[in-house]
């Protein structure tokens, strides 16, 4: 039996299963926190006017897991009292399901919103993760214009 590289390791911030937001919230919830801000990125049916069937995510998992851990640590250092949990989905992500979740618990809502926004913005620009859109007529990697592959059986 062949084991895919991803399956051999346990990542802290990457999962091939649907994201369990309740479990992430439980990780950060705290009776000293008065505010919890959660961001979910969800798979949309439309991308620049084109209809999407499915999203698929790929990562450089060793680096992505490390980069996300650094982003979490930086946010917790910058926003005193904030606790941050992040999970990114890999593989197929059906429409409407979450591709990424950021949950921040903090003493007050100002820090909770600001830390949550900072984490998702930084993750998008720094974590080595790629999104492929599957259309009726083929697939393309977002942000990589020449990557469209027509569907073989179309």
């Amino acid at each position, binding site marked *: 039996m062949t084991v895919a590289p991803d399956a051999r390791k346990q990542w802290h911030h990457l999962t091939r299963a649907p994201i369990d937001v309740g479990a992430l919230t439980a990780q950060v919830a705290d009776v000293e926190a008065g505010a919890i801000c959660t961001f979910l990125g969800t798979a949309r049916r439309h991308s620049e006017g084109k209809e999407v069937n499915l999203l698929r995510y790929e990562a450089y998992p060793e680096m992505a897991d490390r980069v996300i851990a650094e982003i979490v640590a930086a946010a917790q250092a910058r926003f005193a009292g904030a606790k941050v949990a992040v999970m990114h989905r890999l593989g197929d992500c059906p429409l409407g399901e979450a591709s990424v979740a950021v949950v921040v618990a903090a003493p007050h809502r100002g820090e909770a919103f600001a830390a949550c926004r900072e984490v998702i913005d930084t993750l998008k620009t720094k974590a080595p993760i790629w999104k492929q859109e599957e259309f009726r007529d083929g697939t393309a990697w977002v942000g*990589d214009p020449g990557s469209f592959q027509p569907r073989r059986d179309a």
Partner: protein
Amino acid sequence: MNLRVLLFAGIAERAGTREWPLLDLEAPLTVGALVQRLERDHPFLRSVPYVVARNQAVVRADEVLSDGDEVALLPPLSGG
């Protein structure tokens, strides 16, 4: 000197593989020199935007590579 070059997303798709093992390279070799060599051997790379990571951190072109380094070519990120 041996290196692994990891490929992802649209680059892996164009290359038809997820890894180029590079064996018996002459040291010293900078990141920039490696990129030149890869773009000569795989011309499709010249038309793809990417950045280079070395041992899981983005690097500058003038860094010198070491034996056993894990190099990765990262096309435009689109996580989230």
